[in-house]
């Protein structure tokens, strides 16, 4: 079950102040451009994608909240292949895809923590976890990873 729905105090991404939204965008971009060997382009939100794989990292401390990185099947596989630098014909199992998504969320959260809350800000990161469930809302920042979709959101505990 999605942790987002476990968190009644969460606010949707649109409520994020612009500096934080920009820092989130820059953090994702930094991870994608440094670590992912795949075509990644920011894009407008789309609808109809089956975003059913989500990796989440919680921020604990003064800046409590949850970062979520959701993908459709194509996006998840493309992200994993890009991180692992696999050719299209190389085998890729579901466990590898899930681990790649979690590590990607972990890196984005780490970069965001430094960018947004300062190098020594009071924010601790949880170990990333995976939720396989349809994304409740398509709100968030969107990227195309090859032909797939990647949506990154941040919900803050009030």
């Amino acid at each position, binding site marked *: 079950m999605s942790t987002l729905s476990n968190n009644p105090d969460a606010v949707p991404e649109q409520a994020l102040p612009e500096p934080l939204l920009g820092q989130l965008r820059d953090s994702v971009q930094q991870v994608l451009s440094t670590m992912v060997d795949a075509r990644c382009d920011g894009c407008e939100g789309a609808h109809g994608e089956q975003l059913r794989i989500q990796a989440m990292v919680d921020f604990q401390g003064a800046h409590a909240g949850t970062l979520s990185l959701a993908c459709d099947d194509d996006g998840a596989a493309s992200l994993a292949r890009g991180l692992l630098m696999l050719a299209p014909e190389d085998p890729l199992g579901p466990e590898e895809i899930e*681990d790649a998504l979690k590590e990607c969320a972990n890196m984005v959260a*780490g970069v965001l*923590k430094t960018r947004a809350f300062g190098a020594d800000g009071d924010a601790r990161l949880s170990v990333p976890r995976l939720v396989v469930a349809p994304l409740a809302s398509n709100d968030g920042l969107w990227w195309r990873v090859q032909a797939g979709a990647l949506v990154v959101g941040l919900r803050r505990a009030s």
Partner: protein
Amino acid sequence: MNKLLIVDDSSTMRKIIMRVLRQAEISVDNILEAGNGVEGMQQLLSNPDIALVLSDVNMPEMNGLDFVKEIRKSHTKEKLPVIMVTTESGQGLLANALEEGANGYVCKPFTPETIRSALEPYCG
């Protein structure tokens, strides 16, 4: 170099690091893996010839800071260098890691060049 140990709870990250080592032409006879500090200590016990450790910080069971502290009970920095590879780039945390006995650190995300220059001093 003889044996190198990569400790990270992400198998993806362990594979990425192995690929970067190959690309950087850092010659290692054998690369061992562990998913957390507890498994890392077990690897060190069964493989006393491990020459270098790369360790994540944020891991379940035993995190990287506790792991390096544990290593330093039996191995000096000179005898067994430990490089932290971490998403946590807070200066306080990194200073803490060095204080606990880490020889250096690399922040994720990293380029192959960053890993190469961090490892170069230990790879002859």
